[in-house]
């Protein structure tokens, strides 16, 4: 559904994007991850026909964005990272305006808009001026605007930025619903845990270059992100921590009131051997488990050292 090949964007001598390649299939939710200024918004702006690339190709639904922008616009719903609203419009008027701008007849809009407002939980705000909505509500209204012409692709640039935890959860639930509707979604976010739950694939971009792309689990495997083992003992936690610091494959040991946290570089067999050695040493173990490594770990691992790891 989205095909980006060797995409480059130069601002004078500064390369905002360098030979970026991304391939996203239909119905995929693609998390676009990277630090500030990495090139996420630039890539999204090019896909949204708002920026011309210096070289390379970007296609949405088979249409090249620079050659068929009109066709591309029909197929995308774009939500920028920062956006304004027309304050003197009521919520329904706002959606009517965008619906009409996409050529949807008034009769169709009359049916569609209540459904959209229901989807984004704003049904009770339909006669309210946009000005009086909270930031979270405005974000959801903007998402409803993206959906007004039923696009195949949603390009969402930091849709949850600046939202309080509750509003963020609401936004995440709506995005899950959109995923179930079969929309292809490309979404960027700084808050990685919120992406982890819903994305099928991630792309990590740094300094304008893609440094990793694929399923989160695959990237974790390829990166061999270190496991973190949590061990709780009945007593002698400090003693165990001291002992584990000398163990093979152990890079770091922390001890606090919740137990011993071990950064472990070995595989399953080594992990099993470690547990056996703890028992053998007479420690009374309450629990021994591996903490789930998440998108944050992957991101930190990839981006440490200025994108030293590069993946095909």
């Amino acid at each position: 559904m989205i095909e980006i090949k060797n995409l480059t964007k130069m601002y004078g001598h500064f390369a905002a994007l360098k030979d970026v390649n991304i391939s996203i299939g239909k119905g995929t939710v693609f998390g676009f991850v990277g630090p500030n200024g990495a090139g996420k918004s630039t890539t999204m702006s090019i896909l949204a026909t708002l920026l011309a690339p210096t070289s390379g190709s970007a296609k949405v639904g088979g249409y090249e964005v620079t050659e068929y922008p009109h066709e591309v616009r029909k197929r995308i719903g774009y939500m920028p990272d920062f956006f304004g609203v027309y304050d003197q419009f009521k919520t329904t008027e706002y959606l009517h305006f965008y619906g009409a701008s996409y050529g949807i007849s008034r009769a169709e809009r009359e049916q569609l808009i209540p459904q959209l407002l229901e989807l984004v939980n704003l049904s009770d705000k339909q006669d309210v001026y946009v000005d009086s909505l909270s930031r979270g509500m405005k974000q959801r209204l903007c998402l409803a605007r993206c959906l007004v012409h039923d696009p195949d692709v949603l390009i969402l640039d930091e849709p949850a930025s600046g939202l309080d935890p509750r509003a963020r959860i609401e936004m995440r639930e709506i995005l899950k619903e959109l995923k179930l509707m079969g929309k292809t979604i490309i979404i960027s976010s700084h808050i990685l845990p919120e992406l982890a739950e819903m994305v099928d694939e991630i792309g990590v971009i740094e300094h304008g270059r893609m440094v990793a792309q694929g399923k989160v689990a695959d990237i974790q495997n390829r990166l061999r992100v270190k496991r973190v083992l949590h061990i709780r003992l009945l007593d002698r936690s400090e003693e165990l921590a001291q002992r584990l610091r000398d163990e093979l494959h152990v890079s770091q040991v922390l001890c606090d009131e919740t137990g011993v946290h071990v950064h472990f570089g070995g595989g399953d067999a080594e992990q099993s051997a470690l547990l056996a050695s703890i028992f053998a040493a007479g420690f009374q173990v309450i629990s021994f488990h591996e903490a789930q490594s998440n998108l944050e770990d992957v991101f930190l691992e990839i981006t440490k050292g200025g994108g030293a790891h590069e993946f095909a």
Partner: protein
Amino acid sequence: MNLRSIVMNPVLDKEFRLRMRSARSAFTVLAYVLVTGLLAMGIIYVLTAGRGTVRVDSETSRMMFYALSIAQLVLIAFMTPALTAGVISGEREKQTLNMLLTTQQSSAAIILSKLTSSLSFMALIIVATIPVYSIVFLYGGVSMGQLASVFLFYLFIMLLLGALGVCFSTLFKRTILAVIMTYGVGLAIFLFTGLAYLFALGIDQANYYGSGAPPRPYSWVGYLLGLNPAGALISIFEPSFSNEVFLVQRSNLQATAPIQLWQQFLLVYSVVIVLMLWIAVRKIRPVRAKRRSKRSDASVTQAVVMHSEADSQEGASTTSGEPEMMKKVEREVGKEQE
């Protein structure tokens, strides 16, 4: 499709609604009419001061009309850039432009709707000043035709300044820069063309009388004043004004100006208006569709259909086959184009 939907596109509809909901619009009309009224009273005072009785004849009435029309022209020159030079950059600053640009509205529709909306509001303001002109009609000396001509001329001036404002608003990201540029070019049109005429007139007269050259039908200097709105407006009031400006020799067989000042003004600035709007339409979107042949378009459509089919066959999670598919599609498009 009803008449309203044909005439009113969504952007124009939005502009009208938002503008008329703002309290600032009502205050603007009020302030403008007040200023025009005060100017009219000032003009009446100046024209009748020093006389024992306040008696207005048709000649004085006509002078009042001319003075009021010129004053209104200056007010329009101040108001129009303020109303139009922020229409695109303002949307950019409010961060609503990008969302508007990703809709199906054409660049021309966005630009022309913004311009039409601003000029309609300006026209509303001008119409609101008609009661002020009624003072002039009390004493005669001015025909309805003249009044209509002057108002049509105002519309043209608003269109000119509006086109400049919209163009600069598109080219410059910040409204303040667009406003400064529009006022700057407006000043050049209103002031520099007049000064250039006076300067050129002095040089031309000195050269002509100093050289003892043979009589000529007219002088070229008139063309300079034909670029000035005030010159064009006066030529609408007094058709003989163009002859005087072009220094037409009465003794010569061709005893008329080569062109009326207002006609030259309309001709030259019509080109400017079209040029400014064309630039604005070209520049509002950084990505514009490239012109392609119908055959090429048909082949891309066919390719896209194949792409969609391939997508749906591959299912939601599989992406590995896509690059191959697209290469195949591109090869086919290439063959078609050859």
